């Protein structure tokens, strides 16, 4: 072997070591190496050489990177920074506009981006979430497509056979009343029965007790921290009992563990998790194919793929499924866990989910607002560059290189953007609680914002933004030929107004689009809020009949309530109007109809007072009458849609009709149509009014609500208190549950409400940014054209003429923006409005309103400058030549 030190160590030394010192260091290392060879042998020397090299691995020996040498060592860096701040100071106005525009843009984008990330983060906390699926079933029930989120409970056994090394769990929400030894009774909607394996799929962190075997035996229960505190205070609830009560009876559960509250960004919500095996006591008939259903989650084995599992499961379902159930031609659906929040919209979801498309829309909104801010920056900086041409000319004449000038201008945009980002952070922190956490889910967004990735993206953002914003102005500025500049021969560089006009046009087009879409959203939302639904929705209360006692004896309460002076009327029904759910469809038959119609209609079980309670207008025939005994079973009232569907020459009154009502058994009622009511929107406005039949129902199966019509004379609070009093004498065991009908209707349009809030906020912000930009540009233009205006004035031009000259440019820009943005808005608006059966007409007037707003913004923000240039004495500008 050659007597030389290991080559790679020498290379390493050469890589880090400053070339000026390399010669003697390498020499010394060789000498040490050779001494060691002589003293202890070659092998020892080679082995320990690394330590010798490391002795030189110190700061003072390092190469200084080139970039440091040029930017830090020769003072240019300092010089550029100094110039930057001098420029800022000289152009306070432009710098202010630039920075505030960027701050608004960055804040808007960040908030919308956080919202996007938040909505995309759902269920990603669970390990191996790519293998977890929710299994649901699509089926057809008498012509209706059913897409429930839950699946029949026996599907569990079918799927169990298809899993190779996977895990299955069922979760069944079952609302009821919960009570502990120290706490009064509360209605709990997030009471869930689940298999023990829930903790294998979703490992919730336990705070007290252990989740291992926590749900092994029947009548065991796990609480969330929040509920543990609510029901047991600061004492440990482990081993204590919780009483759960539903219409089937009272049950006692032993608390085995307390888990941390579930993160907000999961698509489900649970406060109590009881062992699934408890169902043998709570709902003894639970294991059938029809009702109740449960959410079913499967974690596939690591080698399994979804398609094959689904195929296998479908085959097994056909073999083992209930015959009656298989008639609906059930098809399995495997929904990826992490995709549920943004793609799934099945019946009976845990929470109302979001849509991918609205997420993309909001992200685009953020990007557009940022774009408007960047355009401001580019426009104002290029406009300003001509003012600085002399500086550049002199620098070039003194031998400055293009690359040095580019560095200088990039430095300026880097500093501007950095200041803007620091200010944005300050603004967002200040507004966090009052504003931002209302739009976002505070806790989730906070976690996202404080993670290291977001710090990293802020740094990347600064660099990227300054690159985007700085490139064009820099290149536009440094191209001046020094001879032209110094000879004051700038005219050939001045035609670049075109690029500025194009950018302003883009800004105006975006602003116009946003304004129009906001008008659309707000109008449609208000329309749905205020639309006459065909029934009275204000001062209406739905009182829930919570248990069998209530349902059977509702008449007592009804009579009691009717005696109260502020109550106009009370009627029983099986559902609350406007909430969009709870309507059953029943088979109907018209034996005398020429087409012998047999179909299925929505049915509303009510009593004689119903139409009056809701002010529903009767068009033909008569209302139910308590004195006519046959009305109880043999009279039906239909709506206009039903009458139109039947399309009979002599009207539908007196037409014989058969309705099959399921009350645990099929109850076939053969009767006659006695009245027709005007169409009212018993479902949400997404749906058009479908045929409906109203029948008298007094069977406790469907006496779910008492609808109370209040007089408006007294305060709602005292009215509710009196009702509560009557209720507590009627049923002392349960807390009263009630809802306002108009609130329920509002809830249906929550998604629209949230969107219109976000849209309005950010459109106002974007308009503000665009207005800032227009203001800045106007300032610049009028400053540049001051001499021209002076000459015009001297020649006798009137104020109005000068105003016209100054604003002509904007008229064209706005017209072109209209041409660009209106078709876009037209397409988007008609697509979106298609989602609603009842929608506003988005006519040309709205477009004109948008135009007026944009024109107003443009002129409003340049008004100050126009007035200033009109007022100034022309001598002021003409003299200084």
């Amino acid at each position, binding site marked *: 072997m050659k007597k030389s030190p290991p080559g790679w160590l020498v290379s390493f030394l050469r890589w880090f070591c400053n070339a000026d010192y390399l010669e*003697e260091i390498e*020499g*010394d290392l*060789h*000498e040490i190496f050779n001494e060691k060879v002589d003293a202890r042998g070659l092998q020892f020397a080679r082995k320990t050489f690394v330590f010798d090299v490391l*002795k030189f*691995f*110190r700061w003072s*020996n390092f190469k200084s990177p080139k970039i440091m040498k040029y930017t830090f060592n020769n003072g240019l860096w300092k010089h550029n920074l100094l110039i930057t701040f001098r420029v800022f100071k000289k152009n306070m106005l432009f710098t202010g506009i630039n920075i505030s525009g960027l701050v608004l843009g960055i804040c808007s984008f960040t908030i919308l981006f956080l919202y996007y990330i938040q909505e995309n983060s759902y269920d990603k906390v669970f390990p191996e979430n790519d293998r977890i699926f929710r299994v649901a079933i699509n089926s057809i029930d008498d012509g209706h497509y059913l897409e429930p989120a839950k699946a029949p409970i026996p599907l569990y056994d079918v799927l169990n056979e298809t899993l190779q090394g996977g895990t299955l769990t069922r979760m069944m929400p079952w609302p009821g009343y919960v009570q502990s030894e120290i706490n009064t009774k509360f209605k709990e909607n997030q009471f869930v029965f689940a298999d023990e394996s829930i903790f294998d799929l979703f490992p919730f962190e336990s705070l007290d007790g252990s989740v291992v075997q926590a749900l092994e035996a029947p009548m065991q229960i796990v609480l969330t921290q929040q509920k543990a505190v609510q029901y047991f205070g600061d004492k440990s609830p482990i081993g204590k009992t919780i009483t759960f009560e539903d219409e089937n009876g009272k049950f006692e559960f032993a608390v085995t563990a307390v888990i941390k509250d579930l993160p907000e960004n999961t698509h489900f919500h649970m406060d109590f998790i009881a062992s699934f095996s408890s169902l043998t006591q709570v709902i003894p008939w639970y294991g059938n194919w029809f009702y109740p259903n449960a959410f079913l989650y499967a974690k596939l084995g690591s080698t399994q793929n979804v398609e094959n599992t689904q195929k296998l499961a479908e085959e097994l379902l056909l073999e083992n499924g209930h015959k009656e159930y298989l008639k609906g031609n059930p098809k399995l659906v495997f929904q990826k866990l992490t995709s549920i929040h943004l793609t799934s919209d099945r019946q009976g979801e845990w929470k109302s989910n979001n849509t991918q498309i609205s997420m993309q829309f909001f992200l685009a909104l953020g990007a557009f607002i940022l774009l408007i801010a960047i355009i401001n920056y580019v426009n104002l900086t290029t406009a300003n560059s001509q003012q600085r041409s002399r500086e550049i000319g002199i620098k070039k004449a003194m031998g400055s290189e293009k690359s040095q000038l580019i560095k200088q201008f990039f430095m300026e945009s880097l500093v501007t953007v950095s200041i803007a980002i620091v200010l944005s952070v300050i603004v967002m922190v200040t507004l966090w609680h009052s504003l931002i956490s209302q739009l976002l889910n505070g806790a989730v967004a906070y976690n996202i914002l404080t993670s290291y990735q977001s710090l990293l993206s802020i740094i990347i953002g600064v660099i990227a933004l300054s690159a985007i914003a700085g490139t064009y102005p820099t290149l536009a500025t440094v191209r001046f030929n020094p001879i032209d500049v110094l000879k004051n021969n700038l005219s050939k560089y001045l035609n670049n107004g075109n690029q500025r006009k194009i950018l302003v046009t883009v800004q105006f087009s975006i602003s116009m689009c946003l304004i129009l879409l906001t008008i659309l959203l707000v109008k449609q939302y208000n329309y749905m809020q205020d639309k006459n639904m065909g029934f009275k929705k204000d001062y209406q209360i739905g009182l829930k009949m919570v248990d069998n006692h209530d349902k059977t004896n509702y008449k007592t309460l009804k009579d009691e309530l009717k005696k109260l002076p502020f109550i106009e009327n009370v009627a029983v029904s099986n559902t609350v109007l406007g909430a969009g759910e709870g309507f059953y469809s029943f088979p109907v038959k018209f034996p005398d109809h020429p087409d012998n119609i047999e179909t299925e209609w929505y049915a509303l079980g009510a009593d004689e007072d119903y139409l009056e309670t809701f002010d529903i207008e009767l068009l033909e025939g008569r209302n139910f009458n308590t004195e006519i005994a046959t009305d109880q079973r043999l009279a039906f009232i239909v709506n206009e849609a039903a009458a139109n569907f039947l399309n009979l020459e002599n009207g539908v009154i007196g037409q014989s009709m058969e309705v099959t009502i399921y009350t645990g058994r099929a109850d076939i009622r053969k009767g006659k149509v006695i009245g027709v009511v005007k169409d009212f929107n018993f479902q949400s406005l997404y749906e058009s009014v479908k045929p409906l039949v109203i029948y008298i129902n007094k069977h406790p199966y469907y006496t779910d609500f008492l609808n109370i019509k209040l007089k408006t004379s007294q305060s709602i609070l005292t009215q509710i208190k009196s009702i509560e009093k009557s209720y507590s004498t009627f049923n002392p065991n349960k807390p009263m549950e009630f809802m306002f009908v108009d609130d329920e209707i509002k809830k249906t349009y929550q998604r629209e409400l949230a969107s219109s809030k976000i849209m309005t906020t950010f459109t106002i912000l974007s308009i503000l940014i665009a207005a800032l930009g227009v203001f800045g540009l106007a300032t610049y233009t009028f400053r540049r054209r001051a001499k021209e205006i002076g000459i015009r004035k001297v020649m006798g031009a009137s104020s109005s003429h000068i105003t016209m000259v100054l604003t002509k440019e904007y008229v064209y820009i706005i017209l072109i923006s209209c041409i660009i943005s209106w078709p876009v808005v037209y397409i988007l608006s008609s697509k979106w409005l298609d989602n609603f059966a009842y929608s506003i007409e988005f006519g040309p007037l709205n477009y004109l309103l948008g135009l007026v707003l944009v024109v107003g913004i443009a002129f409003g923000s340049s008004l100050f400058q126009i007035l200033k240039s009109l007022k100034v004495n022309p001598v002021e500008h003409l003299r200084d030549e």
Partner: protein
Amino acid sequence: MKGTFLGELEELVLLTAAALHDKAYGVAIVAEIKSTTGREMNIGAIHTVLRRLETKGFLKSRLGGATTKRGGRRKRIYTPTHAGQATLDQAYEMRTSLYKRIRPSLA
């Protein structure tokens, strides 16, 4: 005079470099310090100190001859400047004058 203050290690290295008379370079200085004081010095640290003394103006350097033992690399030989020599003299005088006050007979 700030910046020309000598640390303990710096003084030791400067002294050794001066004592080695034109043969002072990294490895030699380390060996010399070891033989005279018994202290095991880190070669990397010595290089840094030498460069620092050079920027402070106490040492000057030139590149010396290459040997096969050094893999063909040349040595950087350090010699004291006038300022370095003066500082050493000053330090010596200061010490001896202080020492004289302890044991006047030895002086």
